[in-house]
C-alpha cells in the first residue's frame, strides 16, 4: 500500500484509499503518542526542512513534533528573519536549503500553488502546510480524522463549514476530504465570503446559520481571515454584525433539536465566529483536533518518506 502521489500538496488528487491509508497509520501513531516513550526511529536518516514563509504556531509546532517523534532531523526556516527580506526568490531559497542534503520539505507560503511549484522543480518530497487560499491538506485530513474518531465514521455525516470560505484553504481541503469519504458538505456564510461557483464542487450553500446548524451533524467554524481581506470595500459591515449573524453561541446550540459536534481549525477569534462558552464546551472537539494533528502528520510523513530511496 502506498499513496498515489509522491507529494502531499493537496487533498484534491488523493483517492479514498490514500486517505484511509493515512488514517490507518495515524491510528498506530496515536498509540505511539500515548505511551511513555513517544518516539520511533523510522525516519532517523531523513532530514526535513520546515519552510514557513507565512506565520504559524500550531501547524509548525505540530509538524516539528511529528518529525521529531519519527526520529527525523529537523531544520526550521521562517521568512521573517531570512534572506527573503533581501530579495531572494523562492526557488533560490529552497534550492539553497536542499543543497544542504535535505530530503523532505514542509512548506507554508502565501502564494497558492507554491508547494506544487517546488515539487516540480526539486527532488525533495514536498508536504504542503498551507499555500495561500488554495489548500491545507493535513488540516483537512485531521479534521476528517477527528470526525471519524468522534462519530465512528465520516460516511453519511453532514458537515457544515461556516465562515470565510473564499479565503480559506482549510475550507477547500475539508470539502475535498469529506466528500471523498462520503460525507455531505454544506458551506454557510455571508454571500460575499462564499465563492460564486462553489456549488460546482457539489456542496450546498446556506446563508442562514440556524438552518445550517439544524441540518448538520458537525459544524466547522472558520476564522475570519482579516489579513487576506485587503480590499478597500470590506466583505461585511462589521465584526459585530458578522458575529450576530454567523457566530456560534450556546443559545444557538441549545435551540437545536440534537447535539452537534463543534470544530475550529484555530486560531480562534473568541467572540467573533465562536463564543468562549462554545469553544470550551462539551460539544467542542477543538483540542482533540490539535492532538490528532500530530498523529496525522506523523502518518503522512511516514508514508511519504517511503518514496525516498535510501542511498
Amino acid at each position, binding site marked *: 500500500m*502506498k499513496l498515489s502521489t509522491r507529494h502531499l500538496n493537496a487533498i484534491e488528487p488523493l483517492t479514498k484509499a490514500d486517505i484511509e491509508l493515512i488514517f490507518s497509520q495515524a491510528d*498506530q501513531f496515536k498509540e505511539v503518542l500515548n*505511551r*511513555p*516513550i513517544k518516539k520511533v526511529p523510522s525516519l532517523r536518516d531523513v532530514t526535513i526542512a520546515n519552510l514557513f514563509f507565512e506565520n504559524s504556531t500550531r501547524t509548525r509546532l505540530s509538524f516539528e513534533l511529528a518529525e521529531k517523534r519519527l526520529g527525523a532531523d529537523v531544520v526550521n526556516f521562517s521568512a521573517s528573519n531570512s534572506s527573503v527580506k533581501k530579495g531572494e526568490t523562492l526557488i533560490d531559497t529552497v534550492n539553497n536549503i536542499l543543497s544542504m542534503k535535505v530530503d523532505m520539505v514542509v512548506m507554508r507560503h502565501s502564494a497558492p500553488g507554491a508547494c506544487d511549484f517546488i515539487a516540480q522543480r526539486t527532488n525533495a518530497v514536498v508536504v504542503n502546510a498551507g499555500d495561500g487560499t488554495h489548500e491545507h491538506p493535513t488540516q483537512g485530513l485531521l479534521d476528517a480524522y477527528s470526525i471519524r474518531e468522534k462519530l465512528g465514521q465520516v460516511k453519511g455525516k453532514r458537515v457544515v463549514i461556516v465562515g470565510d470560505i473564499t479565503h480559506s484553504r482549510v475550507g477547500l481541503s475539508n470539502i475535498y476530504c469529506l466528500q471523498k469519504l462520503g460525507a455531505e458538505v454544506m458551506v454557510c456564510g455571508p454571500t460575499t465570503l462564499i465563492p460564486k461557483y462553489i456549488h460546482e464542487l457539489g456542496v450546498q450553500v446556506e446563508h442562514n446559520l440556524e438552518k445550517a446548524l439544524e441540518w448538520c451533524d458537525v459544524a466547522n467554524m472558520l476564522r475570519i481571515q482579516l489579513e487576506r481581506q485587503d480590499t478597500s470595500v470590506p466583505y461585511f459591515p462589521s465584526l459585530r454584525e458578522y458575529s450576530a449573524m454567523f457566530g456560534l453561541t450556546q443559545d444557538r446550540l441549545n435551540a437545536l433539536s440534537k447535539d452537534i459536534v463543534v470544530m475550529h481549525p484555530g486560531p480562534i477569534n473568541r467572540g467573533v465566529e465562536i463564543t468562549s462558552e462554545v469553544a470550551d464546551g462539551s460539544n467542542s472537539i477543538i483540542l482533540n483536533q490539535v492532538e490528532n494533528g500530530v498523529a496525522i502528520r506523523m502518518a503522512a510523513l511516514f*508514508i511519504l518518506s517511503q518514496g525516498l530511496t*535510501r542511498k
Partner: protein
Amino acid sequence: MTKQVTLISNNLLNMMIQRLCKQLIENHKDFTNSLLVGLQPRGTFLCERIVAELHAMGVQVKHGVVDPTFYRDDFRIHEKPLVAKSTYLPENIDGMRVVLIDDVLYTGRTIRAGMESLMEYGRPKNIELLVLIDRKKGREIPVEANYVGKEVESLKNERVKVLWKNEGAKEDHVIFLNE
C-alpha cells in the same frame, strides 16, 4: 514455477502447539508474572492459538500484540512499502516474563525489531522467543528461539508459510513453497 507441498498437516500442527504449551507451563508454572506477545502481523494468529490451548488446559495467561514496523531495518529499502499494524499490551511490562511469539523465524531481523519495539514499553524481567517454524540456515543476526515447533532446512528461494483458519484458510497448516 512455484511448487507447493504441505509441510505440516493440521493434526501434526495441533500436536506441536500442545507440546509448546506444555513446555511453557513447565517453565512458567502459574503465569502470574508472564505475558505472551504475538508479533504483528502473522505471529498474532499463533499467539491466539496458544492462549486458547492454554485456556483449555486450565491456565489463564495475559497476552498482547506488538508491531515491529517502526523499528525495522529495511524501512525504505523494500520495493513494497511497509504498513504498521496495531500494538496492544494489557499492562506495564516492567519486571514481566515476556514470551515473544512469531510463526516463522528466518533471518532474525523481524524479531530484533519486535524486541526493540517491546522494550519501548518498559523493562521486562526477561524475553523468550517462541516460534512454530525455525528456518535454521537463514540467520543474519544472532537470534535463537527458546521454544521451537519444528526446525526446517530450506534454501533462499524456498519459503515456509503458516496458513491460519482465522485468516481464511480451510484449516491451520504449514506449506512449503519452492519458487
